[in-house]
């Protein structure tokens, strides 16, 4: 078979363009892309994740600093969320994590409120202060049945005495504020 420079050039161009399109779909659109430096692995336990998914963003003050890696059930039947964060972050141990919603029906993401403790969270640590997702239906239900003052708030169905008792107090407080 004779080689024809023009044809070979065009075929090379075509293959390159095709592979470029695949790479664009994979990395830019498909989210295979590397999103910020990771490395800081933190855990947080929630009573209710309410539609949080792996790859949901983790933000501080609205700035994306990482993403959710995995959501699993822990032995006390709470959701254990693994987050992969920028390892340059220096987060105090009393940093709290809350699951919030973008808009009223939008996607769930985790928002971190940075605390003021001197000690810093290390990779593999678990955050103790958490605030669960608010489920719109249960809020409406509570509003209708007038149980806004009910103790546990959104985490009323949480097992008592689980590891994050501080978090439950916090979520109860948040609910009462919303409910009233």
């Amino acid at each position, binding site marked *: *078979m004779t080689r024809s420079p023009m*044809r070979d050039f*065009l*075929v090379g161009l075509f*293959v390159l363009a*095709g592979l470029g*399109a*695949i790479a664009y779909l994979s990395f830019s*659109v*498909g989210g295979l892309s590397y999103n910020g430096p990771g490395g800081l692995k933190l855990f947080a336990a929630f009573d209710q994740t309410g539609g949080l998914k792996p790859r949901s963003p983790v933000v501080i003050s609205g700035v994306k600093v990482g993403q959710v890696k995995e959501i699993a059930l822990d032995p006390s039947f709470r959701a254990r969320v693994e987050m992969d964060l920028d390892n340059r972050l220096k987060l105090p141990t009393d940093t709290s994590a809350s699951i919030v919603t973008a808009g009223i029906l939008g996607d769930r993401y985790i928002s971190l409120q940075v605390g003021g403790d001197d000690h810093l969270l290390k990779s593999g640590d678990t955050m103790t202060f958490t605030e669960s997702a608010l489920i719109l239906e249960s809020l409406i239900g509570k509003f209708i049945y007038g149980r806004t003052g009910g103790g546990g708030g959104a985490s009323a169905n949480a097992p008592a005495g689980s590891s994050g008792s501080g978090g439950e107090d916090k979520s109860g407080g948040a609910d009462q504020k919303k409910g009233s």
Partner: protein
Amino acid sequence: MEALRDLGYLAVRFVDDLGKLALFTCRIVLALFTPPVRAGAFVTELFKLGVLSLIIICVSGMAVGMVLGLQGYNTLVRFGAEQSLGAVVGLSLIRELGPVLTALLATGRAGSATAAEIGTMVATEQLDGLRMMSIDPIHLVVTPKATAMIAVLPLLSALFIVCGLFGGYAVGVGLMGLDGGTYMSSLQSAVEFDKDVLGSLLKALIFGVLIGLIATYRGYTSAPTSEGVSAATTSTVVVASVSVLIFDYFITALWGV
């Protein structure tokens, strides 16, 4: 009675065809690993099936993306959800329309040409000539065409999708005044690599195998007359299109892509 006999004949012919196609496939795979490697013929086929299909693929992709953008926007705006336009255009293109429409276009553009070319070679006894020179026509003619079709389809499908995404962007952002960042971020957050993009490439690859095999088989087994060539071309387009659509359903159902 007559109808039953016809049905039986059809069934037997179908199974017979399927078996012959399987044998034909085995011969192609065998030829693939038999030296010499027909790299030149392969590149020529890449040129004919790939480069020459580029224009139709890109134009169709743009048009489909623009229509999706327009239809999606007009529907979504009723629910105040026009921010999700990127996700609508991206997911429908990547999961379904990209591979399937590319396969249908490639069937019409390249599959029919392949069948006609091989069919004409049969009719003009060129394949017999090759056999007389003890050159296996499957090795020289059929294998490069079939493998090139398999290699080309994922590339064409990816290009189709990228053109479609651009078309949707042009309509949504340029015409309808949506924010460009919103379009791209809704696209990026909806599309997942392992589920959507890999599934799309897998579909395109399977369609490439289907079209490549059917087109070359129909051409190779065509009757050595001008009528035979036209019948081979027609049946290539019909059988390949239908099997692409049927396989698409089963791939989606089985792997959920």
